């Protein structure tokens, strides 16, 4: 809530959406000028990322930010409210957007660019950013629709038969999920009489925990679980994500499922905490099964991209595991377990990094905050690493002319740099140190044990092991072994790359950018843990969020 004139920096709240829509529209207007497109799109994405980072810094310094659209007063007008959770997600999305745009410049054919890759990508990024930034639940639905429209366009880029098949499944399931979301929002409006999330958080806390509110919470869980591809609603993802271009798969795998996760955190954990506690057992089962389906599915695949599809699902399961942890039984036991956790952390003194990473979490935080913080960290890691894996797989597939693990091989010798980066990403996705996947898993496993759910921690570890095996399979087959006979017949290893092959350095640039995150978040996780910790506390206790919307009024 703001009175009087706003400073220019206040408009950062809306800037990511405005930048995406402006650039998307401008690029669509000059659709035929395909040579200009990347030169406008890449600065656009850099600008978007810069705005995201500034917004994150502002939120970190000043707490949640709100802007009311058209100066309408809070519960009635549409609020854009950014807290640490939204700012972290939107910044990571912007980061991934920059890398994907650079990659697309070097991998898209001219006809695909003419068809409008960059405008659709900006439209989708606008929808994703809007979903992360809005503070109004109906507006969240609108941004879901915007990102869906962009993603439909991206999905059928090229108009191949197989793509239309995948797109049909994707569209249908997503439309079902969004319709369910809309219907549930209607119910919610009937119960609480408001759509502003801060207002709902206040009013829902005063409601009795009766069947109506629980029904709404369950319906939201189903709708967002379908978006996030959680078991048993995950089947659409492996059926559709392998058909579009690699860079499109990368964006989808990185961002779209995480939008579902974000919406679930925002709605279920912030707006309906008692219902979330009731559903925690269900969510823990969903999480465990999602992880196992993802891990075993990945083991069963022989196509690189289909295998990565299942990695996405396993990652979603891991995030859900963090959301399944509840505050434990009462404050006393929470403090006891926190104290024991502290001694435990002290006991593992040789792993000082571990103690340092967990340190901000320990004092006075219950397992709900720990789990949420770990889930947010894992989600951010997953956005970057899944995008990176798909992009790296795309490069590998282009070099070897196939994405089937049976046909690939010899990439270690042909492209040592690519192989090294792929190894980094595979380590990170499996949760092996010293890369970004390790710390969130440490936090989540610790949280699971602390919350009295050791079996969930065991499933996380088992999934990590299975994903390590699947990753090892990818690396051994596609990179380490010599190229199989039929491929060799095409010519000496790098010789059969398509004629339009970009120079290796430029094609590697986006992968390098993404690898920087994997290494930095793996070696120096403290700053990121501190941020996700703030985000988790902001969700568990939304006083700052509510205060930013309503000011001192209520």
């Amino acid at each position, binding site marked *: 809530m703001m009175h009087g004139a706003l400073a220019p920096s206040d408009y950062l709240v809306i800037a990511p959406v*405005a930048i995406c*829509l*402006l650039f998307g*529209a401008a690029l669509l207007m000059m659709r035929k000028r395909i040579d200009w497109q990347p030169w406008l799109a890449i600065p656009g994405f850099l600008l978007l990322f810069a705005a995201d980072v500034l917004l994150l810094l502002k939120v970190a310094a000043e707490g949640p930010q709100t802007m009311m659209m058209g100066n309408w007063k809070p519960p009635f007008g549409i609020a854009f409210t950014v807290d640490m959770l939204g700012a972290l997600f939107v910044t990571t999305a912007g980061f991934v957007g920059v890398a994907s745009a650079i990659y697309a410049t070097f991998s898209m054919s001219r006809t695909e660019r003419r068809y409008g890759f960059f405008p659709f990508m900006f439209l989708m990024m606008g929808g994703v950013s809007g979903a992360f930034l809005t503070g109004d639940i109906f507006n969240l639905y609108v941004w879901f629709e915007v990102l869906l429209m962009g993603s439909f366009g991206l999905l059928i880029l090229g108009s191949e038969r197989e793509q239309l098949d995948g797109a049909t499944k994707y569209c249908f399931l997503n439309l079902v999920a969004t319709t369910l979301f809309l219907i549930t929002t209607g119910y919610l409006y009937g119960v609480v009489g408001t759509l502003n999330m801060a207002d709902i958080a206040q009013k829902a806390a005063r409601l009795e925990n009766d069947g109506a509110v629980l029904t709404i919470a369950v319906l939201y869980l189903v709708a967002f679980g379908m978006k996030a591809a959680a078991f048993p609603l995950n089947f659409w993802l492996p059926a559709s994500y392998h058909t579009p271009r690699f860079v499109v798969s990368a964006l989808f795998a990185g961002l779209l499922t995480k939008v579902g996760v974000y919406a679930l955190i925002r709605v279920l954990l912030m707006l309906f905490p008692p219902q979330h506690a009731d559903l925690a057992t269900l969510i823990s089962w969903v999480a465990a099964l999602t992880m196992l389906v993802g891990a075993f599915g990945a083991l069963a695949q022989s196509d690189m991209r289909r295998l990565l599809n299942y990695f996405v699902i396993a990652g979603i399961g891991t995030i859900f595991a963090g959301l399944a942890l509840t505050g434990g039984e009462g404050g006393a036991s929470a403090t006891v377990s926190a104290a024991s956790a502290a001694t435990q952390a002290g006991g593992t003194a040789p792993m000082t990094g571990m103690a340092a990473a967990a340190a901000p979490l320990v004092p006075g935080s219950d397992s709900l905050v720990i789990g949420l913080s770990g889930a947010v960290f894992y989600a951010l890691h997953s956005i970057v690493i899944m995008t990176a894996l798909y992009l790296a797989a795309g490069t590998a597939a282009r070099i070897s002319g196939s994405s089937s693990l049976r046909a690939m091989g010899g990439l270690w010798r042909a492209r040592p740099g690519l192989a090294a980066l792929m190894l980094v990403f595979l380590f990170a996705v499996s949760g092996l140190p010293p890369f970004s996947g390790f710390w969130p898993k440490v936090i989540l496993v610790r949280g699971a044990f602390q919350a009295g759910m050791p079996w969930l921690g065991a499933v996380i570890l088992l999934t990590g092991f299975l994903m390590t095996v699947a990753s090892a399979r990818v690396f051994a087959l596609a990179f380490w072994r010599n190229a199989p006979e039929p491929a060799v017949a095409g010519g000496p290893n790098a010789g059969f790359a398509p004629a339009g092959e970009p120079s290796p350095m430029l094609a590697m640039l986006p992968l390098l950018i993404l690898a920087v995150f994997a290494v930095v978040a793996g070696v120096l996780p403290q700053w990121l843990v501190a941020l996700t910790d703030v985000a988790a506390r902001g969700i568990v206790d939304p006083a700052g969020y509510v205060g930013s919307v309503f000011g001192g009024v209520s």
Partner: protein
Amino acid sequence: MRTVIFRFTAPYLTALMVLFSIFVLLRGHNDPGGGFIGGLIAASALAIYGIACGVAAVRRALWFHPMAISASGLFLAVVAGIFSVFAGTGFMTGLWVFPKIFGTEVALSTPLIFDIGVYLVVVGGIASIALALEERESD
């Protein structure tokens, strides 16, 4: 459908409908009407012209690609919101000026710009669908 009478009247009908769509667009702030319905009327005018005289004639008459028209509308709608940055109020706040043009007070506002944006988005979007469908039929 290409009877002489229809082909003769279609251009007049189209011109009349486009004119009417602009009228509907401009009265929309306080009376029934607005960008969306205005855009629909204009798009159906273009569709009639396409049925009578062929899609190629419509594309020639439009000059710009329908998708580009649509995109310009989206651009205009966002720009309408950005005016609020200079006024220091919440994004998308309606800002009004009342200049006297030839002795008449004219109400100009950012909602009008936004509405024109909506109009263009609808014209472009619906026209591109309609033209694509009409083209497919003639193939």
